């Protein structure tokens, strides 16, 4: 069976904060709690990059965190996907143009799904995850 299809049934998320204001982080955290309960879709937070299938990147990617981001991405086993959550992770948002920021996660790793918002609602994050899964076929 196709490996990508297997992920579809139970994707494990790895959450990495690359210099966010915490707004997106607490919304990602809220999206994992009883009100939204993504375990209905088999979505679970992975304790280790080596177990993860989908990386959720939040925050303006700072130059220092970008090295870590690349390292974490390399540690994930293929097939792997990246979701950029929030304006900062997509393009740097309000922090674009700063001396310490890379202006978007796609400058460091390939991104498969963009979730706009500042911060996006937990439902919007779930919608992004579900849309990514349905795209996998």
């Amino acid at each position, binding site marked *: 069976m196709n490996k990508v299809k297997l992920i579809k049934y139970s994707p494990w998320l790895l959450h990495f*904060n690359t210099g966010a204001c915490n*707004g997106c982080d*607490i919304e990602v955290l809220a999206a994992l709690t009883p009100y939204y309960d993504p375990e209905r879709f088999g979505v679970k937070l992975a*304790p280790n990059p080596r177990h993860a299938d989908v990386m959720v990147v939040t925050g303006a990617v700072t130059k220092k*965190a970008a090295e*870590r981001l690349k390292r974490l991405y390399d540690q994930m086993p293929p097939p792997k996907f990246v979701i950029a959550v929030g304006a900062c992770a997509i393009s740097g*948002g309000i922090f674009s*143009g*700063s*001396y310490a920021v890379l202006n978007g996660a796609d400058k460091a790793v390939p991104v498969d799904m963009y979730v706009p918002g500042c911060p996006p609602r937990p439902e919007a994050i779930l919608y992004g995850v579900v849309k990514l899964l349905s795209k996998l076929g």
Partner: protein
Amino acid sequence: MSLIEIPVGPQHPALHEPILLRVRADGERVVGIQVVTGYNHRGVEKLGERSTWSKDVFLYSRICGICNTVHAQTYTQGVEAIGGIEVPPRAQYLRTLVMELERIHSHILICAVMAEVVGFDSLFMLMMRDREPVMMLKELVTGNRVIADYYVLGGVRRDLDEVKKDKILKVLEGVEARVKYYKKIFMEDYTITKRLLGVGVIKPSEAVAYSLVGPTLRGSGVKSDVRADDPYAAYGEIPFNVVTYSDGDSLSRMLVRLDETLESIEMIRYIIKHLPEGPIAPKTPIRTLHEGEAFSRVEAPRGELIYHIVSKGGDKPYRVKVRTPSFNNIINGVIAYRDARIADVPVILTSFDPCISCTERILVIDERNGSTKVLSLKDLSRWGK
């Protein structure tokens, strides 16, 4: 016996924030901690100098997502002090209302995270469930769950009507009952007291000397609260108590937060009952300012937040210095790790309510023994549970 160095972070399943703690351990005992941050440095202060006064309200809100309205309050309050701008009383009360809503959700959040760190996952889930109604209230009043963007220079952006007032009072009743229940759990439950009682003790004299602020300082029995000592917004007119606990350990820091949540609920009831009538924002937007400077202080959920704003006239700030409470608490708080065991390190860190995005700064070494041989355990993920 050789020392072992254990890196914790920057990606860590319990702490959703990029911070690296280099823990030096002699067996189970911690002999030194190195806090490495800077993963979150975004150069906000430089960005603010390029933008205009009115746009900067939105930039400084985004220094920290959890305490965003207090950042906006500190900034606007400083600018209003320089410009001599009068804020209508209704706007002052509405600002206070949103700040207290934020304090409630922030304190419930960190208590939930603490429950997760000590391994009490069902309590974490319950607290996160009961935090959602507060987020809904924030959305009702301001338009967004987390980042409120409620401020303009000289006022606020949305008004409150009778329907919303009733809704706030109704929801808060439920929240109050739950917070009282959680306070009881934190005081009585074996799982929690076993992990928190007597862990990470800071004496009052040390807490002052090391410049700790907020619930960390009040957890050591020092009565210092910007809301009471240096009133801003509508705090001068609203009655409330400053909560202190004298033990100085992780448990008293958490209990200060739970008690403050109950105080905040009372304050919101008072605000809604005594909300003055009148306009909520100035008729003409404020764009330029004359020369001057201001030291603006606000009690954020994590402690004293201070801005130093320098204006040289015109439509742009000359310098805005931001000092966030976590910057003091995390970096100077290394004294609390003395003779702790490795498993206590995340507990102590969480009891400071660390907000790394606020801190976004530097490195400190606190080392007693000279290191003999440093081993590096690279991969450590399920740690502290």
